[in-house]
């Protein structure tokens, strides 16, 4: 993306000591940045030209970040990245559940924040995902909850997978029994995580196998297709969250 000059960011944080240097930094990186010290100021700024993305502190006096985020996602469809001082898992999940696109935990590396901004915008520019997006995937009693990114095995035990593994598995589950070559997989797996590009698809596949295959040397689900790539060799069903 070379046209960062046209990217407009809204930075909402009550701490001027962080907000101002961060805005300066982002401007130096080529973004156009507007600042708001609280949710009320942010709402009035939003009446004007809508920003491309909002950077939002969770803990603010008055209306908090979560509430403003809900408004932004539901009525404005503007991508949101949370800036949070809390690092606990519940906060992360709550943030993602109400529709934030990503979060960074303070103190963060400014470069990482920029990478995530670009990554979220790249995803936002793609066609909107299908409506059944949050329906669970079921394959041979395994279950993947795409919203919470939770994979559970046939016994119902949670199987922790990384974001990259989640994207890879989802790509497979969206195309069961189809042969997917490495380029295609890489293309589908590209997400907000920039470091994913450096990592070979093969490596990710072998990690995913380690987690879902009984014997990863003799895989049952993710089979290698000679000269072609990989194929997911099981049937996949989609069910609404509370079913099945």
């Amino acid at each position, binding site marked *: 993306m070379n046209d960062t000059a046209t990217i407009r960011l809204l930075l909402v944080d009550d*701490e001027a*000591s*962080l907000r101002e*240097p*961060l805005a*300066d*930094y982002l401007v130096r990186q080529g973004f156009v940045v507007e600042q708001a010290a609280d949710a009320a100021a942010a709402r009035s700024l939003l009446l004007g030209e809508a920003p491309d993305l909002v950077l939002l502190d969770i*803990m603010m006096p008055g209306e908090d970040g979560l509430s403003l985020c809900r408004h932004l996602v539901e009525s404005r469809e503007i991508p949101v990245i949370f*800036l949070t*001082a*809390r*690092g*606990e*898992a*519940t906060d992360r999940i709550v943030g993602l559940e109400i529709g934030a696109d990503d979060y960074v935990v*303070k*103190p*963060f*590396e*400014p470069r990482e924040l920029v990478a995530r901004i670009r990554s979220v915008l790249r995803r936002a520019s793609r066609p909107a995902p299908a409506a059944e997006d949050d329906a669970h995937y079921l394959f041979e009693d395994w279950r993947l909850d795409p919203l919470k990114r939770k994979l559970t*095995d046939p*016994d*119902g*035990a*949670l*199987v*922790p*997978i*990384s974001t990259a593994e989640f994207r890879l598995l989802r790509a497979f589950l969206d195309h069961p029994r189809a042969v997917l070559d490495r380029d295609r997989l890489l293309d589908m797996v590209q997400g907000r995580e920039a*470091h994913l590009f450096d*990592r070979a698809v093969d490596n990710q596949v072998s*990690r995913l196998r*380690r*987690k879902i295959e*009984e014997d990863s040397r003799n895989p049952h689900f993710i089979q290698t297709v000679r000269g072609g790539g990989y194929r997911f060799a099981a049937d996949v069903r989609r069910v609404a969250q509370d079913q099945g």
Partner: protein
Amino acid sequence: MRLWPRSLLGQMLLAVAAVLLLAQAISATLLWRAAEARREAAVMNAAAFSLVVRGRDGREERALRTPPRRPDDSFVRALRIERSPAFAPLPGDVADAERAEALRAMVESHGVAVSDLAVFVRPLASDPYLATRPRLRARLLRGGGDRPRLLVAALKAQGAQEWAVARVLIPVRQRGVLGSILFQTLVIYLLLVGLHFLLLRRITRPLAALTARTESFARDRNADGQLEARGPHDVRRLIAAHNAMEARIAALLDEKDVMLGAIGHDLKTPLAALRVRIESVEDEAERAKMAAGIEDITRSLDDILSLARVGRASEAPERVDLAALTASVVEEFEDMGDPVTLGPTVRAARPVHITWLRRGLRNLIANAVRYGGAADVSLTREGGHLVLRVEDRGPGIAPGRIADMMEPFTRGEASRNRETGGAGLGLTLARAIAEQHGGELALANRDGGGLRAEIRLPAG
């Protein structure tokens, strides 16, 4: 076998049984002695009556010929007076001087001048006089139990030419006495036990519930689901006091969480600001040092906040596949280019606080990489435990310092400076996390050098 019960209920019931048995034994002895005294008096009175009233002359002999109306009654069991010029004991007779003395006193008090008086106890079957009265003998033998005996009292009054010999059947002891006492004791005991059981249960049940509650509170420090005060007043007060204490502790812990959250927030925001500001430092080496410094502070802050919060997990534990969890932590290190290898793992799921357990394992691996240069990680099942094992080939720990290493703010070598990072809380936190999951952290030096750190969790 353990005879002394441990529970309050058991001890109370045993004590009640012991005291009751003692009381019953005393009263039974008294009863028995009273019965004995009565029996003795009856026999002696009968003997004295015979000798005094009928023994003086022969005029009442006729009246005695009528058979006793109630043959079992000892009072009328005085048999006919036998008169003989001489009296000598038979071979089976047992002289009873004590009774003779008593009888002499009784007879003399009725105005009989005694010249000579002898008393013997004789088996009924061997009495020659009764042998001449076979029907009476048979009846007495039948009604008198196994070994009926006669009291034979021979009196020679002063001036009399003949001995008057009176015979009194000594009634056999009643055999049902002991049995009825035992039966009585048993009935009373059962009633008392029943009542005690009902009463004590009103105490012990709330106490048992309180014990369970205290244990669960000690485990999760969650003040929800407090006990309702029930049982006797004393127990109610105990439960109420316990609930108040729980609420206070929970409130203190909540305050601590809020305070730590505030500290975390207040420190992390300026750190974030600082981290952004150093991006404008021109000198790249200088900037890298500053960034590392900030990262170091951040890590220490995280460790301290975590240590204060561990055990107060806000989420319920989730069943997690530990093999996948172990692999995912190892992969984080692989991504950073650290030489961490994943050894054998077993598929095993158990409820865990996933964020915490990851963190504990991460701390152990980071330690191994820091001090040993590389780490081998495995997950095995040993007996009832799942063992997350991290091994290195570093210098290990001096044997005497292994326990110290798990204390807060302790580092492997005193000389190591902050270059190695962290606040020295890695192992402390790992231990707290292991304990949070009902397990333990074990550190041991390996044969051939290096350290083995294990988080041992009871298999879910």
